[in-house]
């Protein structure tokens, strides 16, 4: 399996994501090997990767609107083409915001309801286990992961939200440690506690929590690793 992690100017979780993916190589849970490479924002080619990850950070400083500049990078043309052909794309945090701007996912991000940056550990509930990214997980599984964002308040109009919900496109929701989804377990005001959604076809996932920061026991959780392993095992299935 080959994975590509895109570096935009201002990405700052690129190394962390590369590290988490590299640590999977030949581990017991993963069927086969996993090689990881960086993809450069100014390139038009993807080479032959099986999974593309858009990492977290502040692409172009996010001085305008999160992800607004990055979507115009040359590499994004290739990423859109890859996604349209059914290739697996995972956007984490800023990567999610870029996928929204690139119209690979529906909806938009608002600033957090607190109007402050939030860094914290959250629990998220798996809402749909029939996706490449939750392959091997069960609906209702609870994953512990960090969030760190200023704009993670997912928004879409009523029609769009109904469509997203009806299509089972919500993959993760913020919940409490018992798996209950409620106002108190919603860190940023996101509609329906949405923490991660996918496109209709199911090959593009955007999520605000950082799986790469939950990929080592010493960091407090290994749950994030499961998402990478799912995607790679799904490709291998």
């Amino acid at each position: 399996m080959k994975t590509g992690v895109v570096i935009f100017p201002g990405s700052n979780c690129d190394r962390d994501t590369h590290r988490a993916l590299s640590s999977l190589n030949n581990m017991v849970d993963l069927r086969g090997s996993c090689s990881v490479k960086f993809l450069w924002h100014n390139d038009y080619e993807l080479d032959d990767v099986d999974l593309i990850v858009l990492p977290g950070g502040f692409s172009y400083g996010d001085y305008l609107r999160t992800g607004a500049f990055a979507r115009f990078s040359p590499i994004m043309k290739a990423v859109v083409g890859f996604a349209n052909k059914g290739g697996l794309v995972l956007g984490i945090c800023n990567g999610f915001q870029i996928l929204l701007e690139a119209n690979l996912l529906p909806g938009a991000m608002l600033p957090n309801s607190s109007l402050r940056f939030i860094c914290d550990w959250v629990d998220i509930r798996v809402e749909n286990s029939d996706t490449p990214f939750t392959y091997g997980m069960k609906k209702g599984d609870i994953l512990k992961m960090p969030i760190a964002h200023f704009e993670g308040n997912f928004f879409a109009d009523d029609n769009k939200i109904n469509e997203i919900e009806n299509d089972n496109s919500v993959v993760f929701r913020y919940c409490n440690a018992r798996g209950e989804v409620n106002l108190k377990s919603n860190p940023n005001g996101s509609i329906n506690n949405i923490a991660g959604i996918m496109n209709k076809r199911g090959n593009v996932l955007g999520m605000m929590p950082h799986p790469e920061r939950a990929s080592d026991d010493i960091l407090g959780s290994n749950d994030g690793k499961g998402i990478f392993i799912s995607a790679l095992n799904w490709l291998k299935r």
Partner: protein
Amino acid sequence: MREIARKLKLSDVEYSRILEILGREPNYTEIGIISVMWSEHCSYKSSLIHLKRFPKHSDRSLTEMGAENAGVLRLKDKWAVAFKIESHNHPSAVAPFQGAATGVGGILRDIFCMGAYPIASLDSLHFGELEDPISRHLFDGVVRGISFYGNCFGVPTVAGEVRFDYAYTGNPLVNVMAVGIINTEDMISAKAVGVGNSVVYIGSATGRDGIHGASFASDELTEESASDRPSVQIGDPFTEKLLLEATQEIAEQHLAVGMQDMGAAGLTSSSAEMSAKGGVGIELNLDLVPLREDEMTPYEIMLSESQERMLLVSTNENLPKIEALLRKWDLHYAVIGKVIAEPILRLWWKGEIDAEIPVDMLNAGEGAPMYDLPQEKPVLFDELNSQNPVDEWDKLDKLELSKKFDISCDEITDEELIQSIFLALLSSPTIASKKWVYRQYDYQVGVRTIAIPGSADSAIMRIMETGQFLALSTDCVGSYAYLDPFVGGALAVMESARNVAAVGAKPIGITDCLNFGNPKKPAVMWQFTRACDGISDACKVLDVPVTGGNVSFYNESPKTAVFPTPVIGMVGIIEDEKSITPMSFQNAGDSIYLLGETDSSEIGGSQFQKLVFGKYFGKPPKIRLDSHKRNIDFLLSAIDSGLVENAHDISDGGIGITIAECAMNSGELGAKIDIPKEFEIAKLLWLFSESQARFLIGVRPKNNDSIEKLALEMNIPLTKLGYVIDEKAIVIGENKWNIDEISNLYESTILNAMKG
């Protein structure tokens, strides 16, 4: 010209000295350059002779204090840690958001221009009282500024301190410490060498922002300081991030001869310092400097403090490779000059020489002036120290005091007072939870952060490169230094050492940020030198070097002068993952031991004293240099032997608050504590005394004998106070508190104050 020199805050004696060295009158550009390089901020003219007394070496030292942009200590193999702390107090006082943001940016550049990759930042923040709306405004702006810059750049903000005291009203202290990991083979020096080598300007274009920022920082704040806002720079963390990545590649490929951040006094200080360190000169063509504003004069170009700029010296052979890397990272750059043999700074402008100054006269500790300013013990010192805090407490009308805590009864008992004071301390802003603050900081980017802020006495960062861990802490209790600056300086070092030791780390070096008032006042100078002596003594006992730092004078506003505040940034090392020790209680049934000695009369300068009297007086806690060293050594050896389940330094609020923090952090486990018999009469003061050199530790009952034996062997005072209980409660003598309730109180103070 003499008039201009005066306006630029040069003394008449200094001006005469300029005439003597130059052998002529300086022109406008030259006087600007000299004034800024001779400002307190750049030249350290009043502090340098005192800083020279610090112990500077250990067998880990790879740089000497002041010789490079930051201190560097060897970790293992080719890896080392680079770290430094710096203040941005004055800018933060007039423009808190940008002041704090650019404070973060400036110190990051200091470490990454050497080739280090930043892995952590810490902030020591001091504000006026939280009830004061202006202090809240400054607090909010500073936290937002740190959050904005650090998060976007991608450095985790992992620890620090936030303290509130009336002395900082209108003059907050914003001290930022940056820590990076560096491959010593790739280290870039701050020296310019090699005649004919190119001088390259990298980063943002130069504007008029921050002109005379260094001089601004070398003066007291006045009512008019807000109109000095143009002296505050604007931060661009995105460009900083690009600079970092480009610098890393330049370092890895060994392309640069030397490199330095354009910090205070911008192009002037970077070119002057680099050439002075290399024993060469630099010639710059100012027509080539990238500008973002029209019609800037050489004076403005040289003195601008526009952010996110670096000066690099390259051989002509490597220049194309460096240019290619800068283009790769979309950075602006320009070759603006070259290294010359003559040790002068020569500036060309429109085809003519605009300035020519011997570099030596600009260099701190060399040609720049150095003063041994008069010192005088302030009258207040003896006045404060002669008061006896315990007598005053005994004399205090307890019924009157009880009204403050809403206790209504005819006769007030110790238990009732303990109950109320304990809760009031827990919810006092300096002690209360700082979650509102650190939740706004990305403290995990880089996947090195092992402990969430607030869950350990110091930040713990893993060093994957060597398998080691670093413990990081910043500390200073200004009220101790106010009562006795020597004690305050020494205890700042010791508290930071205790904080890293509590997580299992051995202290290996410090950086210091010395925040004081106007050095021309003999009383301030006396405080300063006393604090330096205290720091020196503590470092010698611990055998840790002062690797570098920053002096910030003139921290005075119309209302107050700040407490003398010598902030210490400590780095400790953990060799083995097994030694990482949590703060929170771990197992029900664990024995709770007090390590160290308590003197219940040590309430001078304490949080208890502030709460009860609203002011500080008496003597601060004793330094106990020797006990510190011995107790820290004991704790570390007990941890390494696997005898310690959890450990927590005893500081603000004393034993009572320390127990509460261990319990609240566990969330589930409580404690049952018996007050030692000899303190039964003075139990209230025993609980809140801030005697130093103490830790609270948890030990499995099966290890009680072993740890007691070890204590006996090492002659360490170790007292069993009680045990961990499987109940959300803290029981101390006859008092009992519910952990959920006190957690609520502890978490809500700052959150509620900062709402809306």
